[in-house]
């Protein structure tokens, strides 16, 4: 299919920059204890979701696990709403009720933000089922980690998707680790993509540090699905620079490994590609980065100044309609 305009690539580059600067701020605010609970950073994996979003339509369904800040930001949820969510504020993308692991943005077709490993994969299949049921040509993008593929719900979901020929791309963000457990220690396969064979689902390996490869390979997959609904599986190889969560020193991996991937940084790489092709000057890049930093910084101020969700609304989110004698007196 036709290459998207370079403009798009510059746009996606700034999206990747925003994600990184946002999370750097988030980690700083977490250390300052402005943020509670668990907080999982995506830094290093930016090309994956940005490539996917570039390849998909804005109304394609998107759902992911708990490492979800980037997925909302890439879909256009504001940094303000995202930071406010971390602060647990009423202005957050989940009104401060969801937190880092539970980002939602209905308007932008971002369906969470799910914290039970692999439990959202059946949800994705249900969303794809709905598109087919309504004869829409929407495709569902379902992101999950390498650790998720050993959960029963992953298995049941893939078989169901294949059986009913549903329009869903299963995107495994293989960052080599599930917490401290490397893929070799969690999965009985030489390569994750082979698991798709067990369902007769076509599988592809993608270099997740290369924005263009992610976008182009997923574009192909997505358009083939639009033409004729079916599931597909993509093993996207990437790396998280930070620990699993803010509390993880990540002593289970080597400095060398981390350095190797840093040298392959997705932002540096796309920048280089664009400058080489004279689609981006250093000045332009610096401006983009400066903007990203400003937006991230501003989001902290916004979050700080935002109101807490009202205490008297405590019972308003359990049921969407009034319920007889509930809550009990």
């Amino acid at each position, binding site marked *: 299919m036709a290459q998207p305009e370079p403009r798009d690539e510059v746009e996606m580059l700034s999206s990747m920059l925003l994600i990184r600067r946002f999370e750097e701020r988030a980690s700083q605010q977490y250390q300052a204890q402005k943020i509670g609970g668990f907080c999982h950073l995506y830094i290093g994996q930016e090309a994956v979701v940005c490539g996917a979003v570039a390849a998909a339509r804005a109304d394609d369904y998107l759902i992911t696990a708990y490492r979800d800040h980037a997925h909302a930001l890439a879909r256009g949820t504001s940094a303000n709403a995202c930071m406010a969510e971390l602060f647990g504020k009423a202005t957050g993308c989940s009104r401060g009720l969801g937190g880092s692991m539970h980002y*939602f943005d209905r308007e932008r077709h971002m369906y969470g933000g799910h914290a039970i490993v692999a439990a959202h994969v*059946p949800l994705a*299949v*249900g969303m794809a*089922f709905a598109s087919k049921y309504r004869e829409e040509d929407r495709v569902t993008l379902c992101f999950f980690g390498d650790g998720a593929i050993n959960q029963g719900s992953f298995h049941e979901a893939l078989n169901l998707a294949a059986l009913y020929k549903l329009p869903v791309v299963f995107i495994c963000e293989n960052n080599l680790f599930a917490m401290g457990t490397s893929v070799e220690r969690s999965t009985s396969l030489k390569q994750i993509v082979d698991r798709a064979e067990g369902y007769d689902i076509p599988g592809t390996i993608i270099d997740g540090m290369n924005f263009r490869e992610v976008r182009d390979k997923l574009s192909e997959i997505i358009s083939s699905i639009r033409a004729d609904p079916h599931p597909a599986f993509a093993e996207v190889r990437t790396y998280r620079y930070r620990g699993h969560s803010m509390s993880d020193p990540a002593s289970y991996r080597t400095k060398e490994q981390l350095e190797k991937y840093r040298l392959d940084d997705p932002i540096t790489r796309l920048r280089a590609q664009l400058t080489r092709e004279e689609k981006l000057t250093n000045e332009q890049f610096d401006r983009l980065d400066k903007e990203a930093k400003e937006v991230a910084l501003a989001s902290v101020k916004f979050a700080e100044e935002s109101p807490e969700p009202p205490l008297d609304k405590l019972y308003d989110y*359990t049921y969407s*309609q009034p319920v007889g004698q509930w809550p009990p007196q």
Partner: protein
Amino acid sequence: MAAAMREITYRQALNEALAEELERDPNVFLMGEEVAEYNGAYKVSQGLLERFGPRRIIDTPISENGFAGMGVGAAMVGLRPVIEFMTFSFSLVAFDQVVNNAPNMLTMSGGQFNIPITFRGPNGPAHQLGATHSHATECLYANVPGLKICTPATPRDAKGLLKTAIRDNDPVLVLEVELLYSSKGMVEEEGVELLIPLGEAEVKREGSDVTIICYAQTVPLALAAAERLENEEEISAEVLDLRSIKPLDMDAIVGSVAKTHRVVIVEQDRPFCGVGAEVSYRIQKEMFDSLDAPILRVAQEDVPMPYNEQLEKAVLPSAEKLIAAVKKVCYA
């Protein structure tokens, strides 16, 4: 009721409820094991495939966790799934989907995603199915905020509650009773819109000496016991069918107990942290001074269900056990 009535089975009532809601709303679909080509393991979905086609009546593999989750996902984007568990004993392999995804989504999304889903199927012990196939799950699910739970005991309640559940905008569990599928009762003619609100109990028999609180399987049992109490003990028992476990109709309970001052709860589940425990807590809290005797419950014995018929009978609540408990609270 003014409306003309006719006698149908509990199974037929559920079938009508499904057919009417499938007819009314194109977003409603039925999914589960053997619901389509086999017409349902217990024939509740008889004829629905033929009438509504494979797009809306969908057979699944044996993947409860998977298709329960599919239902939640489909509900997030606007469909109104009815998910059949062949029995709720098998919902235990889908427990996380029912307990985490369906009821938490509205809160976690800050109100963006309500989940209009119905989980239905037979629940509780049937006959000699053994320990793994006899689970009464109502108390497990009732503990979970965001779920609603109803437990019809008559064809009329079955139809009215299932229709209401399907129209409800939040997750509802309709816990049916396998042993009642073939039981008969009067129900409004088809075409008459029968909707029974969730959270409304019903006095199935008036009485003045004691309140027997029951639901699902234990309703016929309570009515039989009440007859015998009337004839053999001259005790006038009021039989209150909860119909919904959550929300719980405390007004109806308080109303009855204010009259009788004595309560026995007869439940189909296990005792420990069961429905009877919750109901008794609420009653003693609200009506401490108007109780003339301790509240007693008659539940399953606290053991895994044995296969042997006599032992199973000994584990289950019975009219005999209920009558003994009633006599205790009435000092009769």
